């Protein structure tokens, strides 16, 4: 027995991909980082459209005083889902799409360190996104019924369908409200007394999304630390991969806080605890419960402030990749850029109280956190300066990708400066809960993250799809976005200073706020138009016939050394890295010769010297024969995702008819648990290939 090396228990293995596989099954079981990147990208973009639509409805409602397009309840639901969607289902996964696409290519790897875990991240993310949006899905029939009833009454004059919406609300299996407490989920708004099951869906949805983010972050840290091509020291790692590494560290350190905070919330709601409520009502009497709503605020912002860096650092990474390419200069102060990323991440853990300046924590903590917040302006300022210095004296060109990232540099500075204003406590107290704050964080999140991510789409589109997006439409897209963005959000500074509060469904004519609100709504429509232009561009490009060389922008990093789109194995030969901007070094540094060049490091297997760091070198023929070792596709990550979808989802169905009687466990949860456990065991015994 003891001498047998191989386990007898072996789960079935899917065949290895020799060439690019096709079909639905190949997508469901894929572990290829490039495909997972596409899945993330497409899903995030769909949610971008949904979240954008929600924002558009908010703007339409605010277009004029005393408007009643959206009632107060729906308005609260819209801004809550808009915020939650844009943060967790758009900016984060879109950043992860770039991590997946770019990191393994940039560091000269064939895939991430744990390809199946990567698939698991995506399916779990999708499960969380669905759980979060179930209330929306089930509110829609009621919404449409209400609209139909209004239309029927208006057109025909008979109130025939008026009973439909209440009937649907009462009889649909999960009829409920949509989360309406805001993305920050402050207690006591989230307590049983003030809300329904929608908060449970919200809490458990974010919980599952957290699992996805954590799994992805573990994977990328190991990938970047361990799968670097030979010769790629840490200070030769391309700056986007550095941004990925530091963002991932932020994720693994910050997400536990929200996980536990959400556990407490779920216990408060379903388990009878009082972590977040100071009072409880028993038999109509108010009694002390011992909890504290401030606990939620602390835990939430201990996660929430690093989270804003999780949203912006990948964008900074993209900017730092794109600006040098279109300035024809290496990144100015590479090392300092790395240190600045690390400093921002480190300081990001010590500033959460600046979200709570008006909660009355006292002078000392407030002053300390105010100072810490101002400190963050230093490394951020360094980044802005270095981008500018990279462009300074460069041979600049402005394709759409460059326009978007230079757009980020300018727009982020505006948002950053209003951020420094908010570090000053008296100013923050004045601006708190006003539209000035809305302007601030849209300048850093839209003018920052979204601009860079759109720029990244234009930049990496040829690498993914082998086609260049149309530049004419691209420039139209950029200028529409730029104009629409500033029209939408700049007036909010004025509105905030004029006293307009956030999260109010409407305002009176006498307030004098209508003009800038109308301008802002026009801006929002322009943004919507710009997205239409982008979609047309994508469709046109998809229909066009063109081929793109490996390095259409003449970039310096390894992803541009391989064909566009890359073969399934990425690198036929794992390259040997000798310089930071390897491809520029190979191409332009006349002094360099011989084995210094990536191109020259391609050697045949037979010539591979003993202990060569160059990894596996294969001949063309061997490559064709499928000799490159690739991970097997696997359906267990998908099964895990399905299990994780049903596991929390089942808990929320309070239907006595579908419970497993004895234990009171809903069938769906038990089923989800079973699927999850089966998948984990199958996965453990599945040979990785």
């Amino acid at each position, binding site marked *: *027995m*003891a001498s*047998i*090396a*191989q*386990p*007898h228990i072996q789960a079935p293995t899917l065949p290895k991909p020799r060439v690019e596989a096709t079909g639905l099954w190949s997508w469901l079981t894929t572990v290829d980082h490039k495909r997972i990147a596409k899945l993330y990208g497409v899903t995030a973009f769909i949610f971008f459209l949904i979240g954008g639509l929600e924002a558009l409805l908010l703007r339409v409602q605010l277009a004029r005083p005393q408007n009643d397009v959206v009632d107060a309840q729906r308005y609260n639901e819209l801004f809550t889902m808009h915020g939650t969607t844009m943060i967790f289902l758009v900016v984060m996964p879109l950043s992860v799409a770039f991590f997946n696409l770019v990191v393994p290519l940039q560091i000269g*790897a*064939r*895939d991430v*360190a744990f*390809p199946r*875990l990567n698939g698991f991240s995506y399916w779990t993310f999708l499960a969380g996104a669905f759980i979060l949006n179930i209330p929306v899905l089930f509110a829609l029939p009621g919404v449409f019924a209400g609209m139909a009833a209004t239309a029927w009454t208006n057109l025909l004059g008979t109130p025939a369908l008026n009973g439909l919406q209440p009937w649907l609300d009462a009889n649909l299996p999960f009829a409920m409200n949509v989360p309406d407490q805001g993305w920050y989920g402050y207690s006591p708004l989230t307590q049983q007394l003030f809300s329904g099951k929608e908060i449970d869906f919200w809490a458990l949805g974010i919980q599952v999304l957290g699992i996805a983010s954590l799994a992805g972050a573990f994977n990328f*840290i*190991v990938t970047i*630390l*361990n*799968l*670097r091509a*030979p010769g790629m020291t840490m200070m030769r790692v391309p700056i986007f991969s550095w941004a990925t590494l530091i963002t991932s560290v932020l994720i*693994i*350190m*910050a997400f*536990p*806080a929200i*996980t*536990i*905070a959400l*556990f*407490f919330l779920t*216990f408060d709601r379903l*388990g*009878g*605890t*009082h*972590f977040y409520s100071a009072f409880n009502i028993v038999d109509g009497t108010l009694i*002390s*419960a*011992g*909890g*504290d709503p401030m*606990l939620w605020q602390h*835990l939430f912002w*201990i996660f929430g402030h690093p989270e804003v860096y999780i949203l912006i650092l990948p964008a900074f990474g993209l900017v730092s990749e794109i600006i040098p390419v279109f300035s024809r200069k290496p990144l100015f102060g590479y090392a300092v850029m790395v240190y600045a990323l690390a400093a921002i991440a480190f300081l990001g853990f010590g500033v959460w109280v600046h979200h709570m300046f008006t909660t009355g924590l006292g002078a000392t903590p407030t002053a300390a956190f105010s100072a810490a917040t101002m400190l963050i302006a230093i490394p951020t300022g360094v980044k802005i300066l270095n981008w500018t210095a990279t462009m300074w004296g460069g041979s600049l060109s402005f394709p759409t990708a460059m326009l978007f990232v230079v757009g980020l540099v300018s727009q982020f500075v505006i948002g950053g400066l209003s951020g420094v204003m908010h570090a000053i406590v008296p100013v923050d107290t004045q601006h708190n809960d006003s539209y000035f704050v809305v302007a601030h964080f849209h300048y850093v999140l839209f003018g920052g993250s979204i601009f860079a991510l759109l720029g990244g789409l234009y930049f990496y589109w040829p690498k993914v799809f082998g086609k260049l997006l149309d530049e004419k439409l691209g420039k139209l897209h950029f200028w529409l976005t730029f104009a629409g963005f500033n029209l939408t959000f700049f007036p909010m500074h004025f509105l905030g200073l004029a006293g307009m509060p956030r999260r109010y469904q409407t305002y009176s004519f006498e307030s004098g706020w209508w003009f800038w609100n109308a301008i802002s709504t026009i801006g929002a429509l322009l943004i919507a138009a710009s997205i239409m232009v982008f979609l047309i561009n994508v469709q046109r490009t998809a229909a066009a016939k063109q081929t793109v060389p490996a390095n259409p922008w003449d970039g310096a990093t390894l992803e541009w050394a391989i064909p566009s789109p890359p073969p399934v194995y990425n690198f036929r030969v*794992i390259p040997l890295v000798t310089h930071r901007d390897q491809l520029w070094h190979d191409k332009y540094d006349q002094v360099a010769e011989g084995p210094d060049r990536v191109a020259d490091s391609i050697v045949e*297997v*037979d010539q*591979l010297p003993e202990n*060569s*760091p*160059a*990894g*596996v070198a294969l001949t063309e023929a*061997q490559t064709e024969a499928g*000799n*490159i*070792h690739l*991970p097997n596709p696997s359906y267990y990550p998908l099964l895990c995702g399905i299990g994780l979808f049903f596991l929390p989802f089942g808990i929320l169905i309070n239907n006595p008819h579908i419970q497993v009687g004895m234990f009171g466990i809903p069938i769906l949860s038990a089923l989800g648990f079973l699927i999850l456990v089966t998948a984990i065991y199958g996965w*453990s015994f599945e040979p*990785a290939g």
Partner: protein
Amino acid sequence: MATAIEVVTAHGAGADSHGGDDHSDHPPPSAGVNSRKMLMWLFLASDCMFFGTLIATYMTYRNRSIELQMPPYPNEIFDIPYTSVSAFVLLMSSLTMVLALSAIKRNDHRGLRVWISATALLGAIFVGGQFFEFTTFARDGLTLSSNIFGSSFYVLTGFHGAHVTIGVIWLLSLLFVSLRGGLSSEKAMDVELAGLYWHFVDIVWIVIFTLVYLVPYANPPEGGAEAAPEAMIQLMTLGQRLLATLPF
């Protein structure tokens, strides 16, 4: 024919055995640490933050129920000698875990099975002890929703108990694989990863046991029992009783 895989193994299979999702044809890990081990360390770093958040919450609410005069109070509930014994059992399981890893590294399969079974058994005794402790506390009136002390106590220690339970299931799975002949010395990493997790869960219990059970609580209102010194006295008495049983 020098195939690709052979070339790679010559470079790739260094000190660490490859397994799981590792790419065996990739050059050796650039950071010099096996990828799976690094993944486990990162998970544990993250888990530190999980427990950190839970413990911070417990410490915030530690004396709240006493201040609000909402019984039952910690001093009336805790049985420190009992919990000390189960803490001792859990800590000893770290020793057996080390012996299990040492056995598999020496390719001693019998030793591996003995020590892994012992570790799982000790872990199971701890979880069983916690289950018994919880039911006793519940009989004494401390439930998840009775007061903020109950809420934070059960969630913190329950979260830890869930970690131990997962560890026991993990160890039993390894035992199962070993019995089926699938756990050779090249797969020592499989045992080592479980061991890292197991030691971490043990260390966390030292922190929880100290902060939850041993550090004194505020005095209960209206001259309740002097809790903290009492707890220490109980612990010392237990030590004396243990010493008395020694044959020398």
